[in-house]
């Protein structure tokens, strides 16, 4: 049973998904125009996972995620300006320009860090869950990772420790079928990552990652369980990335027609259709929403362009805390 969110929260979820989509499309443009240096990993197609999860979290909850983390950051409440500033390496960016695309981090919204080492974010979230447990904050920690990451040692250690310690933690796997250029079946002998919960006596749930409300429903339930001290859960969101793995990848390894099939189940379309069916939205309002998002993205980009780079002395700041 999928929970229907109240109208305001649906509006917010839809707005965030549209903003995320447009922001990422813009980021790709800026990269290809060489206005940004480095690399980027877009989550276009994954938006429902982020907004569905974020809708189930409360203030004080903590999140770690990956280099493919723009959608999480925006869903949790990072401002478009902070993100674009960071993409351009500006002092006003989320990490003062020191992190970049792969490290969008904002402690003020509970986002403890996006990680560029596959799997490393899982144990770090366990530490946040431990703090919640020891300090009895009622909070939970959520960590996002890909299906490919479920083959690395840190995944195994984190799930095992979370289970024996009954940590208030959620492991959310965004199974987008590919790890870089490798289809999951080439590197992973099981059909569903959720089955790996068995090794830790941990519930493993599969959910439609294109449906924000479906994601919300399972994350909310697992979160309630975790908050009640009943331990962690593994949640596998079946999703798809529309773009290549990173900036320059055109994804020639995709199966013919696969993308088209997934485009039919676009997360924005799904929520939009449901809202229209429920008479909560019409095409005009949707177009307005999209236009507002477009303007917000453009504003953020233009703002970020105007921002100064950090001074060179910033290099030596924050290696250590001084004081």
């Amino acid at each position: 049973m999928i929970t229907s969110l109240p109208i305001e929260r649906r509006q917010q979820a839809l707005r965030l998904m549209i903003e995320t989509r447009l922001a990422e499309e813009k980021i790709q443009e800026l990269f290809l125009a060489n206005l940004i240096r480095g690399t980027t990993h877009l989550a276009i197609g994954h938006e429902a996972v982020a907004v569905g999860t974020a809708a189930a979290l409360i203030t004080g909850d903590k999140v770690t995620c990956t280099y493919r983390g723009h959608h999480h950051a925006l869903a949790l409440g990072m401002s478009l300006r902070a993100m674009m500033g960071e993409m351009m390496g500006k002092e006003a960016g989320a990490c003062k320009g020191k992190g970049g695309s792969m490290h969008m981090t904002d402690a003020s919204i509970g986002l403890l860090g996006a990680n560029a080492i596959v799997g490393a974010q899982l144990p770090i979230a366990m530490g946040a869950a431990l703090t919640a447990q020891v300090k009895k904050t009622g909070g939970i920690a959520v960590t996002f990772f890909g299906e490919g990451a479920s083959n690395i040692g840190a995944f195994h250690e984190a799930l095992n420790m979370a289970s024996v310690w009954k940590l208030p933690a959620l492991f959310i796997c965004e199974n987008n079928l590919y790890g870089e250029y490798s289809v999951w079946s080439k590197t992973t002998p099981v059909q569903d990552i959720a089955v790996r919960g068995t090794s830790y006596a941990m519930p493993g749930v599969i959910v439609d990652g294109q449906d924000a409300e479906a994601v919300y429903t399972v994350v909310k339930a697992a979160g309630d369980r975790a908050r009640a001290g009943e331990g962690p859960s593994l949640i596998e969101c079946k999703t798809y990335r529309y773009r290549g793995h990173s900036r320059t990848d055109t994804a020639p390894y995709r199966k013919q027609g696969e993308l088209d099939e997934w485009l039919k189940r676009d997360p924005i379309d799904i929520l939009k259709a449901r809202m229209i069916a429920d008479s909560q939205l019409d095409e005009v309002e949707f177009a307005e929403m999209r236009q507002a998002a477009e303007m917000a993205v453009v504003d953020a980009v233009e703002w970020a362009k105007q921002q100064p780079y950090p001074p060179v002395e910033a290099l030596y700041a924050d290696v250590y805390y001084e004081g």
Partner: protein
Amino acid sequence: MPEMTYREAVAKALTDELASDPDVIFFGEDVAEAGGVFKVTPGLYERFGPDRVRDTPISEQAIIGTALGAAITGLRPVAELMFADFVPVALDQLANQVAKYRYMSGGQFVVPLTVRAAQGGGNGFGTQHSQCAESWLMNFPGIKVVSPSTPVDMYGLLRGAIRENNPVFVLEHKGLYNMKGEVPDDTAPMKLGESKVMREGTDVTVVASQLMMHRSLEAAEQLAREDISCEVIDVRSFVPLDKATILHSLAKTNHLVVVEEAPHQAGWGGDIASLAADEGVYWLAAPVKRVNMGAALIAYSPPLEDEVLPNVGRIMRAVKSVLTDA
């Protein structure tokens, strides 16, 4: 003034920190119910309870990662890695996460995290259980590294490390756990970053740490009988490094010997020699000698292990060689 062992000094520092700050927690493999593999931490579990003193699965990456996550969300964790030889198992978390977490977030976090591990050879534990880890950690700015050599320093530096709002790796030498020394009741948490002149001298500066520092003191004692006066400096803090104390001594003695319990290549001794060759070059009257394991590994066989670790004889020969070379 109470005398205690180096082992007891660790326990006392942990006890005092756990008692004085409810945010301090401690975990690692078999540290709680069993009191630790080196029997360093008995009684903590009973006193501070299962929430704050925990046994972990055999999962070094998870241990360090969890400690990091706890540190940035309001706890002040102390994690044990048991043998320092296991640092490589968890090095991604230490080097790419712990060391960089504050920096890459643009200073959003403080990381009040202490990691402890036991290091060093001489016990017949073989190639994979006898290594020293300082140099493996030092090429990753963002972590501080301290290596206490006496009970009082163990107590003060471990407390200082736990009080630090930065990640600190505290290396304990297995060969010193039974060593006794005075630890005055009013010993306060110590500031990291200071070396100590353990013996004053005028002819040669000997820089060493932990077991090698004690062997250097012994070598100095014997050399004194031959009228050679060594100044022995205990590094204590590898990161940050106390350059001033070393340079000050070198300015006086004009001769430098560095004693490392580790292979030569990319060892911390290179930094001391490099400091001498840079800021101290005009004081150098002779070659800087490094006494270390060269390119050998620690073998199990007693005579091989005894030979590969710098011993008093090798240290004495090195001191004499720099004095006669000129």
